[in-house]
């Protein structure tokens, strides 16, 4: 059964890698640096809320967060195997990584759903 798991997990990792490479830097640059440091004008609360209310934006944010988390999950799992040589703990690591990604996706979905 494990044989069939690796291909889709790698596909998720790969998709997550592309998405996070393209989009994560700009999100962090805007909201983590440029706006707090005043380099760019801060958008108003109402403007951001209006954006997040749009269904398309909700889908975009959900896909971004989910795929980026699954990218982390797969890569971190292998880093733990190789970096710390803990392959014998692989069930625990598997659950922690992909479980974490699933939890993050669920949190994102519920937050987006509850913003009316």
């Amino acid at each position, binding site marked *: 059964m494990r044989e*069939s*798991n*690796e*291909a*889709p997990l*790698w596909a998720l990792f790969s998709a997550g890698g592309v998405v996070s490479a393209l989009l994560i830097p700009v999100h962090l640059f805007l909201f983590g640096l440029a706006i707090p440091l005043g380099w760019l004008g801060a958008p108003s609360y109402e403007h951001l809320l209006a954006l997040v209310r749009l269904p398309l934006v909700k889908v975009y944010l959900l896909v971004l967060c989910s795929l980026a988390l699954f990218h982390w999950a797969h890569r971190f799992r*292998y*880093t733990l195997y*190789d970096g710390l040589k803990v392959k014998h703990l692989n069930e625990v690591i598997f659950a922690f990584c992909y479980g974490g990604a699933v939890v993050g996706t669920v949190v994102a979905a519920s937050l987006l759903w509850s913003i009316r």
Partner: protein
Amino acid sequence: MADNIILEIARYSPERDSAPTFQTFEVPFRKEWVVLDALNYVKDKMDGSLTYRWSCRMGICGSCGMMVNGEPKLSCATFLSSYAGNGNKVRVEPLRYFPIVRDLVTELSDFLGKLKKVKPWLIPKQELPLSAGEFLQTPEQLEDYKQFSMCINCTLCYSACPVVGLDPTFVGPAAIALAQRYNKDSRDQGAEERRVILAHPEGIWGCTFVGECTRVCPKHVDPAGAIQQYKVDAALEWVKGLLMPWGQRKSKEGGRAAA
């Protein structure tokens, strides 16, 4: 130009030692000499018991792989003059991540087993009689797999790959590159058979694209590229299987001569 160069060579005799030690030899420095020449000089004139593999001395047989100053290299392709400045010392050790039989000789049966596992030969769907004629192949079809066919099985890539050292069940760069050489060959229909070995968690999926294998390959085979291409193919196969579950075996029509 210094007259001599110092070689620090790993020695291990299973009857005498419990672990490898280093022995220093001072060898004349000739501008055109490679590490293999220095080793041959040592064996010839200084210590006949030095044990190492070599054959063609021109980078095609793949026998003389060793670690030179921590880098996997072919000893017949590594010039002493590259190390002349470096405090004049060259450290020669057996290839990393393999058991050591003696001195610089590694035990390769594990690698050969992995190679055999991936079935590096043409697997036709059915054996054709001689009367059917030769397989025809266009230059484009040759380009599809030619780079991967350049592998000389020197196992330098295995010494460069940390996953090989960490995971003894990982099939390894050369074996996967050779599997791809046959998978991509238009005359071969064995991709399904190889998939059972390669798509296994202990097949290709241990690879994390470190990329060291491609960097050290003396024949520019690019095993890392072969492995990533295989991952993409495997992912696409899975998607296809999901969307079209009524069975789609990828069958390649091998180029057959018009009888």
